[in-house]
C-alpha cells in the first residue's frame, strides 16, 4: 500500500460525507500539477514551512533509520486529515493538496517534530 492509497482510505473512512472529505477525494482523483518534496532527517522535516500552489503533490521521505509519522494537525489537536507511518529509512508518502489553506503536521512518535504546508 502506498501513501496515497492509505491517505485515500483514511479520508474515505474518517471523513466520508463531510465537506472536507469531498474536497480531499476530488483532490485525490485529479492529477497534481506540481510536486514538492519534504525530507525527514535527523528528526526534522526539511524544508518547513513550504508555500505551494493549489494542486501540488507533496512527498515525504524518511531518511532516518526509525519510524516517523506524518500526521496532520498538531500534537495538541490532530485534525484527522491524514496520518501515515513511515517505517524506517526510505519509506515515503505522498499527498495531493488542491484546497488552499494551512496544513500543519507533526510526527506522532516524536511530537516536537512539526512542519507546515501553506497552500495558496
Amino acid at each position: 500500500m502506498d501513501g496515497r492509497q492509505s491517505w485515500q482510505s483514511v479520508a474515505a473512512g474518517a471523513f466520508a460525507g463531510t465537506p472536507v472529505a469531498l474536497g480531499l477525494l476530488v483532490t485525490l482523483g485529479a492529477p497534481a500539477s506540481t510536486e514538492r518534496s519534504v525530507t525527514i532527517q535527523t528528526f526534522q522535516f526539511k524544508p518547513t514551512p513550504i508555500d505551494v500552489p493549489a494542486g501540488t503533490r507533496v512527498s515525504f521521505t524518511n531518511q532516518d533509520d526509525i519510524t516517523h509519522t506524518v500526521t496532520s494537525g498538531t500534537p495538541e489537536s490532530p485534525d484527522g486529515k491524514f496520518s501515515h507511518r513511515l517505517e524506517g529509512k526510505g519509506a515515503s508518502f505522498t499527498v495531493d493538496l488542491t484546497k488552499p489553506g494551512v496544513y500543519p503536521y507533526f510526527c506522532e512518535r516524536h511530537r516536537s517534530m512539526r512542519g507546515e504546508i501553506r497552500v495558496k
Partner: protein
Amino acid sequence: MKHVVSSIVGAVAAAAILAANIGEPIARAEAQQGHTMAAMTTSSTKASGLRSTLNTLFQEHIYLAAAATGAALGGREAEFKAAAAALDANSVAISKAIGSVYGQGAEDAFLPLWRKHIGMVVDYTVGVATSDKAKQDKAVADLIGYTQDFGAFLQSANPNLPKSVVADLVKHHVVTLKEVIDAQAAKDPAKAYTAVRTAAGHMQMIADPLAEAIVKQFPDKFSS
C-alpha cells in the same frame, strides 16, 4: 547482577568496536600526512576541546540526575526542584553542543529527544518511590525503546555512529542510572555513590566515540 555485568561487557565491547571503526582511519590518515607528532605537541586542539566538553557535559548529566532522583526519593522537594533545574540546564548545554556542530535545527530536535529520556527516568523514580512495579516496568521498557530513537538520531546526524552501537551504549547508560536509583531507594548510600561513579564513568564511552565521530565527519573544523 549477571545482567548488569553482561551489559557492562556489552557496552565496553560496543565502545571498543566504535572506537576501532573510527580511530583506525584517522590514525592512518594522520600518519600519512605526517601530522602525528604535531598533534601530540599540545592538548589544546579543537578536537580535544570537543571531547573534553562532551565528557564534562555527559558526566554532569549523571551527577545532576542522581542528585535529582536522590532528593526526590528522600522527599526533599526544594532540593529536587533545584537539581531538576540544573539538570535541565545541562540538557540545554548538551543540545547547544550538538547544535554547534549540526546547526540550530538539529539542536532544536535534539533537546526534546534528550529531555524525553529524563522524563522516563522520572517516571521510573516515581514508580520506585510508590512501589508501583507496573510503572517501573513501563518506564524501563520506554527507556529501552528510547535507545533506538537516540541511536537513529545520532546515526542520521553522523554516519560514523552506527545506530545499534549507540543504542547499546545508551542502554548501558540507562542500566547504570537505574542502579543508582535502586540503591538510593534502598537507602544504601555506599552502593548508591559507587553506582554514581560507575554511571558517570560510563559516559566516557558515549562522549569519546561521539567526539571522535564528529572529528572524522568534519576534519577541517577540527584540524588545529
